[in-house]
């Protein structure tokens, strides 16, 4: 008898609370997730696909579910990773990030056959040129995603680091030993 009563009490309590929660969820039903919107905003938006997701929107959804690390975006580098971490309220170890610095695509003049495939693949329209003419990369618009290098039939596009000049040279962080 005690056993049946016990089961009945717990079952009744569970049902009652479940019903209350169901009611509450109608009032407080989750709407679209603004976190995804903020993540999409923080990502470069070039849909280059280097993160392994088809576009920045999908990457943002994956980030919000915690399926992807904040360091997923190679063109964004450390700055974007930090911003994503801030939105998600997580921290990340910059040491994990393959911080090779931003890259630029460069057409090898003697390899280019003017097929214009790279022009079609470029997510930021950073490559200029016409069919059977030598193509050239606009450095200002290039995000170094490497999409062009993948489609080039002659392997004539290299990704290179941005050369250090007096204009973009920065002081390094002083090597600080802990006392």
């Amino acid at each position: 008898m005690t056993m049946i009563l016990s089961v009945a009490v717990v079952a009744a309590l569970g049902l009652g609370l479940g019903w209350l929660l169901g009611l509450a969820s109608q009032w407080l039903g989750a709407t679209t997730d603004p976190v995804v919107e903020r993540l999409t905003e923080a990502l470069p938006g070039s849909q280059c696909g280097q993160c392994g997701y088809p576009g920045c929107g999908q990457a943002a959804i994956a980030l919000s579910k915690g399926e992807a690390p904040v360091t997923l975006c190679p063109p964004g580098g450390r700055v974007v990773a930090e911003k994503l971490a801030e939105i998600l309220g997580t921290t990340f170890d910059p040491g994990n990030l393959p911080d090779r610095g931003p890259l630029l695509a460069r057409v090898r003049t003697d390899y280019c056959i003017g097929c214009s495939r790279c022009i079609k693949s470029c997510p930021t329209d950073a490559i200029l040129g016409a069919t059977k003419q030598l193509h050239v990369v606009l450095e200002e618009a290039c995000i170094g995603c490497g999409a062009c290098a993948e489609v080039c039939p002659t392997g004539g596009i290299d990704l290179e680091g941005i050369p250090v000049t007096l204009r973009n040279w920065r002081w390094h962080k002083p090597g600080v030993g802990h006392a």
Partner: protein
Amino acid sequence: MKIFRFRGGIHPEGNKDPTACHPIARLPLPKRLYIPLQQHIGEPAAPEVKVGDHVLKGQRLARHQGSVSAPVHAPTSGTVIAIGDHMAPHPSGLPVQTITLEPDGEERWVETEPAVDPFSLTRAEVAARVRDAGIVGLGGAAFPAAVKLDAGNRHPIDTLIINGGECEPYLTCDDRLMREGAGYVVEGVRLIANGLGAKRTVIAIEDNKPEALEAMRVAAAAHPGISVLRVPSRYPMGSEKQLVTTVTGREIPAGKLSAEIGVSVHNVGTALAVCRAVRFGKPLVSRVVTVGGGAIRNPRNVVVPIGTPAADLVEFCGGFTVTPTRVLMGGPMMGQVLPGLEAPVVKGTSGIIALTAAEAHAASERACLHCGRCVDVCPVGLVPLELAARVRAGRIDDAAELGMGDCLSCGCCAYVCPAHLPLAHLFNYAKGEIAARREAQRKAEETRKLAEARRLRLAAEAAAKAARRPARTTEKAETES
């Protein structure tokens, strides 16, 4: 005249006597001159000569491009033997586009165009002459002077301050310049004041230079609009913001220019260069450089053609007595490490200072004591110890929020730090990082715009394609139904 006090500041040992007592010497023409095309803040100059060209002294080698830029002129007559990379006078030691000139020893001037009555020139004409002469701020910042004169058109300037502070230890080039060329300096000052339309002109000189003060007083006595002001010796008196506060009591708000509160500041060396340019039509081709520091045998001030390698200067001053621990361009507080003696003197080089080990005060770093001395001396009211902790922890954004951007890099904090923390270095790093982030941000926004433009273009193309084949689609629809 009332003098106001700025907060913070330090009294470093002057070490000015060894160079201040000798008259300015003239350097014999070096064998080669290396003239960088970027000696100023802004866009580099574009070369106008070819390899093999013979040029005259004062001939333009490269013209300015863009609104903030300055042309470069030949420091002597001779032949252009190369246009290419040479070590920049910059701590990175990176190469910079440089014109190499082999002097012919004749020092033949190009035709110059002296002004008949320089004081009848309009503001725009003065600015144009200053720009064509390639004059930049000679105090060290190397900001094109014509841009500052032009700023007078956008913001009315009521006070012109001539900076004779020279608060950096060791440096005495402005001191000697005022003693020996007071007349020209005052004339340059009057021309700048005329150009800006300033109501009041103040020449501010630190009280550790009594001879210069006296010489300038005598030279300026005939001109009632100009007053010579004795200001206390306190580093960084020669910094623009601190000098403006000292003279006018006004504070330049964070992130604003002095012109926005009606004040313009120019260096005494710049005033002399303006006099030469406007009155005689001569471009900026040489400057006075202090060669000093304990490691130099005969420290003194030298008039040097722009582009002279530092090695020639050191040799002229008797070479090194001991191997210097550190060779600096500019003063020991804000100067930058010279990457090598082959780097040339440029328009902004106020000194070549070779420090011995004892002078360099190289001491190993210890833990921060939180003593707060850096807070006491910071002239802009920052909290260096808190900034440093954040920069070290990699929290650059937090540091920026605490006012990292307002740091002058004056080095007062590092000077007083009993734990020898590399505060100035940390802050230079942080400011570079902030700039890099801003650049990355800008690029990201640009990328977004480009990607959006591409999306719209592809959509428009697809729509056009669909519109071109309407018949086929209707046919298809009919068969399907």
